[in-house]
């Protein structure tokens, strides 16, 4: 079962602020979903099954420098910007 503390911890990991009411709602809704998943998961024997990732082949491209988009074009959507970068509050004191 998922507790309120776990919801708050998961919210913090997700970089989400949850008020008391929403946390309680999530506790209930996520609890229902996880309970259903637990019920199903417990009936499926996967002990001898390989997970899917090991079977997939990865195609890699050549390590070649290619032109990307112009800086100005990329920064056009920034909420706040200098000529070269987005602006955010100080990250290092």
């Amino acid at each position, binding site marked *: 079962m998922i507790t309120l503390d776990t919801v708050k911890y998961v919210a913090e990991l997700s970089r989400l602020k949850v008020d008391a009411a*929403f946390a309680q709602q*999530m506790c209930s809704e996520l609890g229902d979903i996880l309970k259903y998943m637990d019920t199903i998961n417990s009936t*499926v024997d996967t002990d001898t099954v*390989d997970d899917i990732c090991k079977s997939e082949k990865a195609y890699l491209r050549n390590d070649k420098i290619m032109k990307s988009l112009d800086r100005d074009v990329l920064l056009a959507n920034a*909420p706040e910007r200098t000529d070269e970068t987005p602006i*955010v*509050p100080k990250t290092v004191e």
Partner: protein
Amino acid sequence: MGILDYTAVELGALLKAKEISCREILDEVYSKISHKDIELNAFITLSRDKAYEQAEKVQKRILSGKDLSPLAGVPIAIKDNICTAGIRTTCASEILGEFTPPYNATAVEKLYKNDLVIVGKTNMDEFAMGSTSETSHFGAVKNPCNLSCVPGGSSGGSAAAVAGGEVVCALGSDTGGSIRQPASYCGVTGFKPTYGSVSRYGLIAYASSLDQIGPIAKDVRDCAAIMDCIVGYDTHDSTSLHQKYPEFLSGLNASVKGLKIGVPHKWYEKGVDFSVKEKTLKVAREFESLGATVVDLDLDFIDYVIPTYYIIATAEASSNLSRFDGVKYGYRSTDFRTVDELISATRSEGFGKEVQKRIMLGTFVLSSGYYDAYYKKALKMKRMIVDGFDRAFKQCDIILCPVAPTTAPKIGCALKDAMKMYLSDIYTVSVNLAGLPGLSVPCGYDTDGMPVGVQFIGKKNGDLTVLNAGYAYQTAFSKGNK
């Protein structure tokens, strides 16, 4: 017959024969949207100026007699999670604000190369997370067949725009049924290609191992014509398949003699509405009259497809949506002092509740102490689903089943019970988990007059076989949804 009563392929032919102009079609599209979209709310953004500019260029190319794509000059709507350069792209979320992509998705670039005209961006569930198109920041989409019902989701706007006669075709995206289910609910045709067939570059990701762009249109021929435009290897998408593709439109031949159609009869034993069961099983019998053979399949993985899908999809979503933080683009909260506060305030204010729930669920199943029990377990169940389909396709060429257990529910009902909404994806999610092609074709109506869709599932790269089966059905028994 009105201009927008034609299919996309038919309109392309009329344009080529110079019996109609691109401008005339666009005038009709925007006139229809101005009348109907107040009710349907299928569109978030209309790109009139760009569309007329494009139409003028294409018209010159048509008049010059150049050999163009069968869909040259045909207008198309694009789901609003697909990047369109210079046209606002929102994913139906507040968090993207007025984000205007500086580039086209590869699928969009290919539509431009084939001279289609993009008319606007369609409404959807926020970040493609939903099955009803009710979670949009821009308001719910309505089903043109009954305005008190949902159109399905998450490509509900695209399906409603086609079904409502606003456009003749659209692009959607499908992660767990988001093309096929709204196509079924709205009585139009929708196709999810084999994973890797259509580049995901420029598709704003929900679950990267499951997402695919695909067409929603009036019939299978139109879907095939659009597929010809958008398939192909792309260096920008490392999951894009290195292979050649058949020509889908010219490859349709309506012959299903000798085709083996697998029907998982156990999937019908509980939870399926009578009309859905009756209409979809009737399709199987109709195929027998066309020379196909029906075989019974035992696909027992149906019991665990939903937890497998929701664990994997939300886990991937929690990672994919971590980029939305108010720093480089989109909405930024004003309620912050530090960077951490900027990020959490922006995300909490900018994301809707369903998106926040799925992000938290995904974060939970990936977190320390729960990773093995949920995420790793789900990857193994995914393997079992892939193996289950592989065994099935040794017995048949395509699988026939419902798209959804019911027809379109009333607006407001599905969101009251999240588990019930998630369980309604039971027939579609396994197709995404296995990366297979899936087609939704209208096959009748329930007693309230709401459309029923039948689903054809093919083996990996069996897209033409699936499309041909749908084409054979529509040719013999219905005319799509003209």
